[in-house]
């Protein structure tokens, strides 16, 4: 009975997953999407668990309880830690795929040669390669994002690095092929762990040369890998639900990676092998140009006089956790009948949609979050552009300076506004590690300090001053 039920159940689950992603196309329906996803998942788990082949239940229950025990706290991390959490979950996903693949192989060995057909072996090898390299790779990525001590932030490069990686990959592929051709040879069971080891090693080496700030893109790519490993598992188990879900996951990773690369005007290869973060090292420090800074009072007054204010948040707002203060500022200005909008750059922050989530967390209506392409035409009419911890995404050099690493990346035209206030702590550059002439323009006034602190002051000024109006 249950065996027959499993097929329709899997089809329904698939449909639910597709709807789940479909409903993400607008915030109104997005939560419905979550419920659909949960329903599909629950259905699939229950029906599978009820299969007659499943006779031992203890460990399953245990693992599920464990999953909840770890999963719930993992879901409570502060939003700034979301990239790490994502990376971590890819690691888990990869691990799961790799382990199942391994189990399937040794099971097949037991059942004799006819089960380990060439095609099945190809799927298994693909599964463990993708799975285990995603595992270590994602762990490294998570570590870099979490800025764990013993994982070097800055890209680690050494001569012939890419060549070495390539060689390693070839070895792994070679060993894999050997396994595919002779899955049941007496040396095969001993060679299998070698493939695993190679995959694990490759995952590490793949990430080492990539700068911490490039991790978001890498994460998206690892996301695609994780999806593909699920697909491979689907091939091994002949489970179309797995294949579909994996493909959905894979497409999402791929598309996000493409969006990020486009918005950064970089290519995949450049991200993966460009050791981009290096620029940061070489260029950072030592600007001699003059910044003109402004006092909180002065800034507050100018803001009060404005009728059109655009706030441009960046990674700095995330670091400072300043979104709630920003909201208070937003309220203060709104109270005065000033139109306040937020200009959201596709790669502001360190992950896609980063700023949107933070501002939404601060309860700012998403109808006031405007995309770059929509707001840029209005910038010339804007009285004050308030840059909160954003840098590269407002760097005019992207428009003309061919030598600049961000040349060609579309930016928010803060420099077109009548007045610009820029909040940052120091004279240090941003992610791309380059000067930002916007800060030296004669319409720009710097407000040095931690974003949270500075904006807090501004709010105090305005709320204090608001009485006199």
């Amino acid at each position, binding site marked *: 009975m249950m065996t027959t039920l499993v097929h329709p159940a899997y089809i329904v689950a698939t449909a639910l997953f597709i709807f789940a*992603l479909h409903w993400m196309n607008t915030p109104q329906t997005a939560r419905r999407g979550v419920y659909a996803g949960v329903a599909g998942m629950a259905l699939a788990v229950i029906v599978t668990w009820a299969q007659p082949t*499943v006779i031992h239940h203890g*460990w399953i229950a245990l693992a599920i309880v464990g*999953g909840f025990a770890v999963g719930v706290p993992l879901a409570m991390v502060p939003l700034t830690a979301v990239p790490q959490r994502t990376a971590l979950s890819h690691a888990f996903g990869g691990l799961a795929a790799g382990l199942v693949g391994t189990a399937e192989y040794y099971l097949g060995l037991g059942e004799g040669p006819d089960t380990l057909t060439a095609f099945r072996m190809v799927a298994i090898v693909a599964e463990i390669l993708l799975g285990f390299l995603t595992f270590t790779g994602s762990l490294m990525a998570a570590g870099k994002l979490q800025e764990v001590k013993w994982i070097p932030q800055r890209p680690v490069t050494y001569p012939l690095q890419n060549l070495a990686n390539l060689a390693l990959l070839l070895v792994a592929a070679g060993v894999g092929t050997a396994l595919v051709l002779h899955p049941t040879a007496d040396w095969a069971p001993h060679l299998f762990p070698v493939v695993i080891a190679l995959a694990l090693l490759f995952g590490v080496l793949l990430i080492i040369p990539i700068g911490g700030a490039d991790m978001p893109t890498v994460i998206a790519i690892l996301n695609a890998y994780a999806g593909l490993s699920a697909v491979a598992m689907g091939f091994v188990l002949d489970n179309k639900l797995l294949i579909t879900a*994996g493909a959905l996951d894979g497409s999402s990773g791929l598309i996000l990676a493409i969006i990020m690369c486009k918005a950064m005007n970089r290519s995949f290869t450049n991200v993966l092998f460009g050791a981009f973060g290096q620029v940061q090292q070489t260029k950072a420090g030592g600007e001699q140009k003059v910044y003109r800074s402004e006092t909180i009072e002065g800034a507050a007054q100018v803001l009060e006089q404005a009728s059109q204010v655009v706030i441009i948040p960046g990674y700095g707002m995330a670091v400072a956790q300043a979104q709630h203060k920003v909201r208070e500022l937003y309220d203060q200005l709104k109270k005065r009948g000033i139109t306040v909008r937020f200009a959201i750059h596709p790669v502001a922050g360190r992950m896609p949609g980063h700023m949107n989530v933070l501002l939404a967390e601060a309860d700012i209506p998403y109808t006031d979050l405007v995309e770059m392409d929509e707001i840029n035409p209005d910038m010339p009419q804007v009285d004050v552009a308030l840059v909160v911890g954003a840098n590269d995404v407002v760097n005019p050099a992207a428009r003309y300076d061919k030598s600049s690493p961000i040349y060609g990346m579309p930016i928010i035209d803060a420099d077109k506004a009548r007045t610009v206030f820029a909040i940052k702590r120091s004279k240090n550059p941003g992610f791309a590690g380059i000067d930002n002439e916007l800060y030296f323009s004669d319409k720009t006034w710097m407000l040095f300090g931690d974003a949270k602190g500075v904006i807090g002051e501004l709010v105090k000024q305005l709320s204090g001053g608001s009485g006199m109006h």
Partner: protein
Amino acid sequence: MTETSEFWSQLFVFVLASFIGLGVIRRVSRLLHTPLMSITNAISAIAVVGSIIVTGADYPPVIRLMGGIALFASMTNIVSGFLITDRMLKMFKTDRKPGDGGHS
């Protein structure tokens, strides 16, 4: 159904699923790209069905242990993935209600 044609029908499904994936994801609102990442995590943890079988079937313990670990890993992704997605989505509002919408 022969083993190869089985492979082809799986590949067929993969191609169709990719079409759907690319079509659907491309239309996800830019506002929601962060939640999108976490919900796809959760969904791809459907690999859990594979590990349930391996863990629960009548296999040698070492095999079942691997399955158990895999099951635990997937389950973690499912739980945290869906929870954090919902937590983030709860925050998106059109009209501001006073008080905060789910600070962390």
